[in-house]
């Protein structure tokens, strides 16, 4: 049986752990509120972008455009968005598992890492890290998304990569974040389920008369890079919100577990204390009896 001192030491150590997890939970809650508003504000832009692109592709079916067909290179770029810090439950591991379980061969994949945790985990598994933009995820800006898009598109145009994927965590609500793996390029006109949005509305009659200036190809040339950056930017914001949500949930259950353990240890401690008092009393009485007798 553990001595009173051992139990006490253990209890105080768990108490300080609880303080840390409680503080982390509070911080994550505050950050979550901020990042959630940001993610929600960006959805308007994203949804408009998405529906415009879908309408254009529907209208210009059969158009041959360099961004609409896969490149000749077998290499695939994967933008992996994770966090720079741990202690967020399964948040980072889930994204990493998406990449390893995607069916892409590790030797064909070039990772564009945003977030240190994902970068390190994938590097350990033998993936090639082509670029590292981990600092971005601390404070994602739209210009960061543009920068990454430029880098990816120039590689795509040079035929160094044939396809571009994006792995991130989409934010559904505080307790539920869903890791997603999606194809950025070539844009697949059939993939109408890329992400929730303004789908299922059908073409409005106005759009059937839509004109493109100078012409469809050039408009696609201009819009697709913006589309890709908006997807990446949206993914950044969703990922940050998800990270904080995941951390909040993880720290909440850690705090609960610590509380439970402290309760159990208090019980054990009291029992041990009572036991030692009883024993002392028995000894004293036995001693007194011996003197009297």
């Amino acid at each position, binding site marked *: 049986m553990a001595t009173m001192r051992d139990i006490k030491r253990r209890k105080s150590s768990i108490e300080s752990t609880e303080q840390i997890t409680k503080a982390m939970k509070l911080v994550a809650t505050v950050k979550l509120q901020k990042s959630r508003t*940001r993610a929600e*504000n*960006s959805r*308007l*832009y*994203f949804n*408009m*972008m998405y529906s*415009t692109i879908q309408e*254009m592709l529907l209208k210009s079916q059969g158009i041959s455009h360099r961004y609409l067909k896969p490149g000749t290179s077998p290499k695939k770029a994967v933008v992996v968005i994770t966090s720079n810090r741990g202690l967020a439950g399964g948040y980072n591991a889930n994204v990493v598992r998406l990449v390893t379980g995607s069916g892409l061969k590790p030797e064909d994949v070039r990772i564009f890492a945003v977030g240190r945790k994902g970068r390190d985990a994938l590097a350990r598994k033998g993936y090639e890290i082509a670029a590292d933009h981990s600092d971005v995820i601390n404070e994602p800006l*739209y210009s960061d998304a*543009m920068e990454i898009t430029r880098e990816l598109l120039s590689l795509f145009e040079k035929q160094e990569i044939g396809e571009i994927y994006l792995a991130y965590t989409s934010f559904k609500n505080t307790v539920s974040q869903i890791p997603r793996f999606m194809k950025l390029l070539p844009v697949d006109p059939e993939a109408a389920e890329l992400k929730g949005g303004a789908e299922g509305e059908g073409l409005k009659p*106005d*759009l059937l*008369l*839509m*004109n*493109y*200036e*100078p012409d469809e190809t*050039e*408009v696609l040339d*201009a*819009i697709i890079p*913006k589309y890709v*950056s*908006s997807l990446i*930017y949206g993914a950044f914001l969703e990922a940050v919100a998800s990270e904080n949500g995941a951390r909040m949930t993880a720290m909440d259950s850690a705090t609960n577990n610590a509380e439970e353990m402290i309760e159990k240890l208090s019980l054990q401690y009291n029992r041990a204390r009572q036991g030692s008092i009883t024993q002392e009393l028995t000894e004293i009485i036995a001693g007194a009896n011996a003197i009297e007798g």
Partner: protein
Amino acid sequence: MAETMKLQVITPDKEFFHGDVSMVELNTADGELGVYPQHIPLTTAAAPGVLKIHQDGQVKKAALLSGFLQILPEKMTILAEVCEWPEEIDGARANEARIRAERRLTEHSPETDIARAEAALQRALVRLSLVEEH
């Protein structure tokens, strides 16, 4: 009262502008474009330039640096990657960007991306012109 149409300007972070307007002027890849209500449906990319919004007899100006637009007879949507009101522009920074871009263009070193430097110069000039007016 003149006819109006809905204008919505959206940037990745927020809804930049929303309201009923009588006319909109901006720069596109093909040159300047003025849009009145009942315009034919049109989708095109915006070039760096000053966005002029005519509303209730007043003209609001903003720097529209990158984006594209969709025009319908009663509604116009601008998806702007970068769009700023004059008071949001940092004049000193824009001036610095102008000088940097000009230098890059005059140096003619082989690794300079001419198109990119020109675009940067154009953006800086648009911002500066708005700051000076402001």
